[in-house]
């Protein structure tokens, strides 16, 4: 028995060791897509001043496809022209990035730089884990006035700037020219007003063939909220009050917007279904993002065009914007400075023009939107992006409150009731207001 024990113990230890190793191994391989990522050296172990080899900085982002290829190319370019720094590009999916950052910050192997969804900015800014950039911005003489103010709004917290916009997109109208023709409509005359949109949607819908006129986002969640906000702003409404302390959508403008959706459904312009009909050629029109221009240019088996999103005759043009902002995590002064130099280079007009032309992202700063090189490219290669570039000046911003995701879910949950005909427009707005206010008072 006693001779058995040591070997049993040893066997167990080996077993445990393999278990632990195999449990840990996937974690490191998952975060690295193409190249393995060396563990980020924690700041306490390396003396900050001695850097004989290039400083290695990790950059987490969720850009894939064409966007992923482009960022890799830009990083390669940067690494070649800056031999003292080596940026490591790490792809992490959108739905995983925030949870991964969460565990990385707690566990101590956080990245140096990350590109995050602008909706997360207010939450991240107040964590204390990311570096305020004001001093760097001042030292590098960055002209902040060149950036669109609605973009920078989400980066501001406590009078400081915690991130830099790097890419953006917005929502405008797409329409299916083939379906327009089939319904006897002029394929070169997209609607300009809500009334025209309504009429065309009704005329173009073909329930027998499963075709809807204007696709709406009616499933609960942020998809519904951010689409609805456009209609709300177009009718002159606001989502939250100016001081961000209470809901502001329960107004005549909110009622007008929601009634427009409900009427579209009632009158046959749309039939409740899962999102994604337009891409399958089953919807005449849809309001969708500028990123779809590149995707549908390659994949849509029908002829389509784009236009500025129609708005009410007594209203105003508006759109909602998304996009990514780059942030820098607290490490040591040398690494942070190196990270800033990269961020500053990435958000410069020169890099941004290349970035936008390769990816189809919208300009984040005026000098990009008005650059002759960019305008020429737009005209020549993808004129269907023009309504989006034009719409950029009407782009609003989702309210920068830290618990926005929760507010958005609560809002969409009540609004959906009106869309499926469970409650009236007024009641839905009323209950949504109560729910949102309860969340804002916390």
């Amino acid at each position, binding site marked *: *028995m*006693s001779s*058995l*024990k040591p070997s*049993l*113990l040893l066997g*167990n230890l080996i*077993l*445990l060791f393999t*278990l632990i190793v195999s449990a840990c191994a996937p974690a490191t391989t998952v975060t690295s897509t193409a190249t393995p990522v060396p563990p980020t050296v924690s700041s306490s172990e390396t003396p900050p001043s001695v850097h004989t080899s290039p400083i290695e900085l990790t950059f987490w982002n969720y850009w894939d496809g064409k966007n992923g290829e482009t960022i890799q190319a830009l990083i390669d370019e940067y690494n070649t022209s800056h031999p003292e720094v080596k940026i490591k590009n790490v792809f992490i999916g959108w739905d995983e990035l*925030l*949870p991964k*950052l*969460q*565990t990385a*910050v*707690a566990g101590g192997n956080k990245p140096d730089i990350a590109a995050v969804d602008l909706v997360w900015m207010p*939450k*991240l800014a*107040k*964590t*204390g*884990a990311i570096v305020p950039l004001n001093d760097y911005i001042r030292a590098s003489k960055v002209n902040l006035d060149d950036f669109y103010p609605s973009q920078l709004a989400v980066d501001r917290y406590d009078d400081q700037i915690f991130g830099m916009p790097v890419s953006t997109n917005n929502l405008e109208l797409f329409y299916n020219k083939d379906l327009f023709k089939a319904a006897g409509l002029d394929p070169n005359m997209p609607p300009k007003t809500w009334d025209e949109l309504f009429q065309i949607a009704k005329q173009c819908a073909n*329930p027998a063939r*499963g075709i*809807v006129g204007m696709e709406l986002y*009616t*499933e*609960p*969640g942020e998809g519904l909220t951010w689409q609805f906000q456009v209609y709300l702003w177009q009718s002159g409404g606001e989502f939250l009050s100016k001081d961000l302390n209470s809901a502001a959508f329960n107004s005549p403008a909110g009622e007008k917007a929601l009634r427009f959706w409900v009427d579209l459904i009632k009158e046959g312009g749309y*039939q*409740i*279904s*899962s999102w994604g009909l337009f891409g399958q050629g*089953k919807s005449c029109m849809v309001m969708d993002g500028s990123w779809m221009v590149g995707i549908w240019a390659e994949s849509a088996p029908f002829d389509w065009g784009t236009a500025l999103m129609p708005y009410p005759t007594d209203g105003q043009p508006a759109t909602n914007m998304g996009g990514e902002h780059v942030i820098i995590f607290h490490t040591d002064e040398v690494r942070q400075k190196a990270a800033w130099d990269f961020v500053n280079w990435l958000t410069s007009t020169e890099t941004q023009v290349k970035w936008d032309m390769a990816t189809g992202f919208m300009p984040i700063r005026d000098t990009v939107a008005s650059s002759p090189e960019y305008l020429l490219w737009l005209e020549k290669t993808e004129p269907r992006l023009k309504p989006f570039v034009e719409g950029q000046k009407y782009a609003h911003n989702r309210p920068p409150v830290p*618990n926005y*995701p*929760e507010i958005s*879910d609560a809002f969409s*949950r*009540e609004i*959906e*009731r009106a869309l*499926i005909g*469970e409650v009236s427009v007024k009641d839905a707005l009323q209950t949504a207001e109560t729910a949102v206010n309860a969340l804002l008072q916390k």
Partner: protein
Amino acid sequence: MNLRIRTHPYRRDEVSTALIALLPAIIVFGVFNIIPLGYTAYLSLLKWDGFSIERQFVGFQNFLELLSSTYLWNSLKATIYYTLGVIGLSLPFGLLVAILLNSGLKGQVAFRTLYFLPVVTSTVAASMVWKLMLDPGSGYINVILREIGFSPPAWLRDTHWAMPAVILLGVWKRIGFNMVIYLAGLQSIPREYYEAARVDGATSLAQIRYITIPLLAPTTALLIVMAMIDSFLLFDQVFVLTGGGPAGATDVIGFLLYRYAFRYFDLGKASAIAWIMFIFIASVTLIQWRLSRFGTKEIA
């Protein structure tokens, strides 16, 4: 084979050998079960988003806020609805299929495989197919129903029909599992009971009623507990099929927990929900255990 049951106590070196042999299991269980359990209990008393350096201790405020919010109660109601639906349908159907397969039908093996297939199908993949089939406008189910003259509901987008549709998928996935366990149970019932009953002139229905069902009671109790625990943890079907909608009709507690943890980054509330779930499941299981007097049922 002759098994002797030992009556003398274990020797000391036997105990230590046993401990060493069990060590990996104990460590793994501790690391992956006990420590997280304790950690969630600690987290449930905090207001913390998972990032911030500052963790605010709030006592039982998370629990109080949850218990006074309509969301938690709505989720509990939806979860219980789902659980009862799945247990109420998947057990009788599982038993029925097991009895049919046990009665020496032709093509037994093929049927057994067919019924077990949903169990090993990826839930997410299956849910996506169901979602396509149940689409109110272009889904096959409604296309066919309209073709034969019905005006079908919007299924997953209708507050009354969404949960039955989710339950249907749950039942579809569970029948096969129940069937296999019931089959094992059926095969352990001695043939003599049925022969004796036949001699006494009992019909097949009476045989099922008076022999099969009572003798399968321990199996049934086990299946109910397992189905209950699984149903309480429901998440993936809802995530794919409905996103908790319409208007919260399928917002089960597992999905509520997910939202608090990974969308709202309120780890305190998410952990509190986890503990409420834990306490609820534990107490219902205990009550059930008592009521069914697990495995001790004797045949009169």
